[in-house]
């Protein structure tokens, strides 16, 4: 139960400013046509604060730079990992958890990046 006191009388001087508020949609740009939300499953990125069940904000319009988290297609599965390159300039997908190995591509294999993870929505109360 919530109890609140309602005052009737002098109008609030703040009323004229009432339409401004902060929008999380705006912060993570989730209304852009290129932005999708996906659910993280697994603990391979725990080292950079991405946990099982988190909601990832993925932008397909963003360019994937070295060191960014990308959603890539690996063996027909959508996989989130950190994009890096080896000495020969070939992409290597890095986990952020010592229990997981890096994923290298075979010769002639092309990395398919589905989108770039721009933000992570992690709830502190869900579990």
């Amino acid at each position, binding site marked *: 139960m919530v109890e609140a006191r309602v005052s009737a009388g002098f109008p609030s001087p703040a009323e004229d400013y009432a339409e401004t508020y902060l929008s999380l949609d705006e912060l993570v740009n989730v209304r852009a*046509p*290129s932005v*999708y*939300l*996906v*659910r*993280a*499953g*697994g*603990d*391979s*990125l725990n080292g950079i604060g*991405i946990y*099982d069940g988190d*909601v*990832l904000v993925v932008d*397909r*319009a963003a360019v994937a730079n070295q060191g960014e988290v990308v*959603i890539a*297609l*690996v063996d*027909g*599965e*959508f*996989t*989130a*990992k950190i994009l890096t390159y080896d000495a020969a300039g070939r992409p290597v997908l890095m986990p952020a958890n010592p229990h997981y190995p890096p994923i290298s591509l075979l010769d002639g294999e092309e990395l398919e990046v*589905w989108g770039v993870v721009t933000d992570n929505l992690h709830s502190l109360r869900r579990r």
Partner: protein
Amino acid sequence: MSFALVDCNNFYVSCERLFRPELRGRPVVVLSNNDGCAVSRSNEAKALGIKMGQPFHELRDLVAREGLIACSSNYALYADLSGRVMRTLRTMAPRIEVYSIDEAFLDLQGMQGDLEQLGREMRARVLREVGIPVGVGIAPTKTLSKLANWGAKKWPATGGVVDLRDPARQRRLLALAEVGEVWGIGRRISARLNVMDVATALQLADYDCKSLRRMFNVNVERTARELAGERCFALEDGPEPKQMIACTRSFGERKHSLQELQEAVTGYATRAAEKLRGQRQLCQALQVFIRTSPFDQRSEPYSRAVCVPLPYPSADTRDLVAAALGGLQAIYRPGPAYAKAGVVLMDFTVPGSYTPDLFAPAPRPGSDRLMAVVDAINARQGRGTIRPARLAADLGFSMKRERLSPKFTTSWSELLRVKC
């Protein structure tokens, strides 16, 4: 001045493939409501000879033999992705007309530079940013841009973009297109044209316009003029309000009793009334129909429709349900195994623009406000929270959708899962 027609390739299948990579490179069809027939086909499915609208029961052996995958239609997903495609296109042209869920006309007036290059950019951006492949046709008229788009799909060497602004190029493409491929030329008109030795789009473009108007109608004349490069159709900014709203379904299982049909028809009338209020109009008549399945050999064929005028223009669910049930009562016959029913609203008017009938019963007082509250509650709590008491809790809208993919973009519990 030029138009671009941007059309998504095999749209429903492409939506499924964006989130389900296992569907790539395989024959895939998306089925209509109640898993009835194929409404979208992958190129691999087309190569197997699967026709648009082919009933699923004819395709079942291809599932085992050719690895055909059939998906139920996931309209929540397709609507979301359609909106994304359109929003992306809006950033690339000053004016756009969303023509259907998977195509849009763009007005390229005032656009500088290489328009074919612009078309390639549109295609590349929608594919990369939204994830849906599209074809682009560019031409001086809407009808020609449609045909350019057809060419872009038919010949892969075009890279999905055809610029048809050059008159010599127009004539070459028109000569290759059967007249039935032309926008607005349906099967009946093209059959009549064929009798007149008009077999290709080019022959239609070169035909005497005045005779076409006399023999057919003004729209066929305009279509021919558009094919010849004369602009007759303008871009309609934003969709015009519909002149008819239909809510019909094939039943998951055959229905026999009046009571079962009453429940279904009440559901359709309720849904149709919501749509009518959504476009802020009233209707003055509605049609109810019931029919058996043409594929049913056991049951005798039965199909009846009736048009019911309303006592006053209304968008009130109670009025429309009452009228629909009255119509159903009149056409129902016990015996047949009913496979489909529907309610079609027609004869629209806007509130305040009609003269009330002095002798007709008065409209229900407070109807607007009550319906607004019902719509607001249903929008927040889910469709069917407030509904006619005749409807069961899961409503008559529930469809047979056994092969439904998740609502990847519209439900928190069904988001795409990525392996971390």
